[in-house]
């Protein structure tokens, strides 16, 4: 069982605010680790640190055995670490298919090519279209992303991350803003994620968490409150007191 991601004693302060306190966890191939905790616990900050958007003050991050703590986000992505954003982060005017192709060009290292048209790479276009088809977005291939429904934009977020064929995927509240009951396509996309992928997911919806995750990490005030299997977490009195009191 290969270790994809090792986070050791990760620490971060914003001035006087200690937002991440010596957080450690591991992600192996096939893991579905859910990161839960009350609002303000520092979940997104932690993901930002792991993905490279934020510089950590202390601690180590190892991706497939290599130390990436000092590397910038782009470098970590190229090494196999992909993420989605809680607030949809898409290029608003680009058509959906172009956005996926952009991810593919980047993955293949072709984004420096300046002579041939983007239409002249049929194998990548086919891959983009089949990825869109898997997400049920093929009908909107030529639509600018800002013209799509919100739920579909969330799907594109996930599609872009998967287009990169990452080894580790960080999902920051993929269901954010999608009303309960409307998320069927997103849920099936989550279920259909590659089996050997290591996934860390931030979520508030407890039903989803207990259904999807094989391990749970509970964060409160920047520190790890508890970690273990869903059953362990469900019966942990500390967690019940701090968090599971507000059941959804």
């Amino acid at each position, binding site marked *: 069982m290969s270790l994809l991601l090792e986070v050791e004693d990760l620490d971060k302060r914003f001035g006087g605010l200690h937002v991440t306190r010596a957080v450690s966890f591991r992600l192996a191939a096939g893991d579905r680790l859910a990161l839960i905790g009350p609002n303000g616990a520092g979940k997104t900050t932690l993901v930002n640190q792991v*993905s490279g*958007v934020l510089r950590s003050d202390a601690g180590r991050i190892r991706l497939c055995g290599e130390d990436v703590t000092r590397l910038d*986000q*782009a*470098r970590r*992505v*190229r090494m196999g670490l*992909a*993420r989605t*954003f809680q607030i949809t*982060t*898409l*290029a*608003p*005017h*680009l*058509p959906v*298919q*172009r*956005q996926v*192709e*952009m*991810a593919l*060009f*980047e*993955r293949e290292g*072709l*984004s*420096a*090519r*300046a*002579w*041939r*048209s*983007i*239409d002249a*790479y049929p194998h990548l276009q086919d891959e983009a*279209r089949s990825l869109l088809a898997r997400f049920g977005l*093929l*009908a*909107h*291939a*030529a*639509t600018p992303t800002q*013209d*799509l*429904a*919100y*739920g*579909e934009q969330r799907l594109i977020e996930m599609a*872009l*991350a998967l287009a*990169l064929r990452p080894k580790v995927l960080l999902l920051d509240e993929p269901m954010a803003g*999608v*009303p309960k*009951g*409307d*998320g*069927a*396509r997103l849920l099936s996309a989550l279920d259909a994620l590659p089996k050997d992928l290591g996934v860390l997911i931030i979520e508030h919806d407890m039903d989803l968490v207990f259904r999807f995750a094989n391990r749970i990490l509970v964060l409160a005030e920047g520190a790890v409150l508890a970690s273990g299997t869903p059953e362990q977490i469900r019966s942990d009195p500390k967690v019940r007191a701090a968090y599971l009191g507000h059941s959804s």
Partner: protein
Amino acid sequence: MNTQSVLTTQATPEAAAQAQPRCASPWLAPAILLAAGALACLMLPDQLGLLTRIFVTALLVLSLDLVVGIAGLATLGHAAMFGVGAYAAGIFALKVMPEPLLGLAVGVVAGAALALASGAFLLRYQGFTFLMLTVAVAQIVLSLAQKARGWTGADDGLSGFGIDPLFGRFAFDLEGRVAAWYALAVLVLVLHLLSRLVNSPFGLAVRGIHENRARMAALGTPIYVRLLTMYTIAGAVAGAAGALSAQTNAVVGLDSLSFGLSAEILVMLILGGAGRLYGAVIGTVVFTLLHHTAASINPYHWLFVVGFLLMGVVLVPPARLLGFVRRRMGALQ
């Protein structure tokens, strides 16, 4: 409320299978431009000087479109690359040899070099800071040009150089015929090259950076390198425009480095629409013709026209206006 509305968008079944984005051909716009430009040169033989100026300026505004329209970097210092290209070509003609195509190459290299050097510094910043720094850099170049009297002639300008016949055969005549065709040819060729550039994976990546940097970083794009490359290419094109200007006018002045020029070309670009390359050409034509007619009446009235046009263009972007018109036409049918 329709519970399906969050997750699905309306799309007709026919559209489903066909929907696929396609890029325009990189031959179309240049072909149209060549035809229009050639027609203008043939039908208006006494306006060749004006036409040459339009072609050269359009080339400069095209280079600005790469930076502003494609890469999304608002700059008020772009004239620096133009001026540097102009002075480099002029000095080359004066002190080394008056061969036009080599001079053009010298201008290209000079513009690219300045863009590379300044961009390496500038692109570490964004937004208002970047804008102000472009002003600072351009003003520094202007001050250096003023200082270097021996090379640039400072306020008197650089002159006294001739240009050899193009390809050894076509001498630059007094009516300006060769100059006009020369400028048009370079403009059309560059428009074709840039059309290819913008529709390439590199161009797509830069457009992505323009629209959402965070998204591109999350895809692993080396943002700084891509932007610097685009900025350097833009500098090369601006330098080419400068060289053409020097060669067709046989004089280079300090106004080719001025803040006023940087602002003017920005206005031209916006009038024609930024981000689509051909908009740069359209904007240049519109602006220059307006200026030509209005300024001869009263230079201040000219400012009225441009001022209102600018405010109008910002309040009602042409793209939105076009979309509005298109929807109206659709409703009529």
